[in-house]
């Protein structure tokens, strides 16, 4: 077999059996890498970490959270016989988290702090689509919700009698979830 024939067969194989293998990457938020430090108050944290992603206010404390997520979704595309412009895609996604947590007294003194990095699998799935379109095989809709902070002003316009959360709770952020970014 000549080298031309070999190249011909390899090229044909790639074109016919592996159309549109894909890498889908997503990045939500950013936490600047910082050397380990021991803050004494909220000012130290703001200077080192910048404005927090999320804030929660409790009765006698408040919390800063910094969180970034990187999602990698490699996909394998396979040709569908007799359907030239369609492919069958297999994919799986993994999320890598970087999280920093700081709790302060209402006067701003540090109560406790913790940071952590971890990964979690978002699942394996498949899709059928056009060969020139990158289909997402894993449902990432939970990462695409509007930020609660951007809906805060709108929530103040709601009828008080229809509100599930009282105005005091909205203003003081006395809710179980963090305000700011939702993850």
């Amino acid at each position, binding site marked *: 077999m000549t080298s031309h024939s070999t190249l011909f067969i390899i090229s044909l194989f790639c074109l016919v059996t592996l159309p549109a293998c894909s890498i889908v990457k997503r990045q939500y938020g950013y936490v600047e890498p910082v050397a380990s430090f021991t803050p004494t108050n909220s000012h130290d944290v703001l200077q080192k970490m910048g404005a927090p*992603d999320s804030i929660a206010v409790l009765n006698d404390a408040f919390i800063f959270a910094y969180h970034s997520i990187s999602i990698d979704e490699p996909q394998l595309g396979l040709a569908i016989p007799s359907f030239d412009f369609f492919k069958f895609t297999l994919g799986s996604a993994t999320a890598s988290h970087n999280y920093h947590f700081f709790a302060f007294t209402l006067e701003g003194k540090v109560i406790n702090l913790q940071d952590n990095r971890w990964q979690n699998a978002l699942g394996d799935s498949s899709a059928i689509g056009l060969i020139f379109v990158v289909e997402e095989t894993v449902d990432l809709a939970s990462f695409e919700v509007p930020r609660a902070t951007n809906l805060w002003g709108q929530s103040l316009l709601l009828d008080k009698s229809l509100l599930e959360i009282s105005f005091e709770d909205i203003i003081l952020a006395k809710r179980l979830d963090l305000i700011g970014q939702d993850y």
Partner: protein
Amino acid sequence: MNNKRLCIPLILVTSLLSACVNYSRDSGVENLWRQPQAFNNGTTTSQQVLTALGPPSQVLAVGKQTVYYYLKEQVQRQGLILLVYNETTEVSAFDRAIFFFNEQGILEDFSYSKMADTPE
């Protein structure tokens, strides 16, 4: 043999037919804090911050302090589409500013989010 010689470049060209995709969208307030501002702890008032940056995305009460929180979300997606390989990257950046005021409306502390030059 001649047919094969024609087929090989044809297949390679077809395989490498490419396209680029790019889109972006913004939501939230305008990030005016990235422009030169003269905010100083102990002297700047909440009114001066409001005048410079406009209404905050959210207002919070933390003990006796009032917090103004500004948030702008910027989403940018870039992609390279080939017939045998595709790659897309979507980056959601959250540009933030936070201001703490005392009971008299004087700025006690403030900070802006750190921004990435490149995705992590």
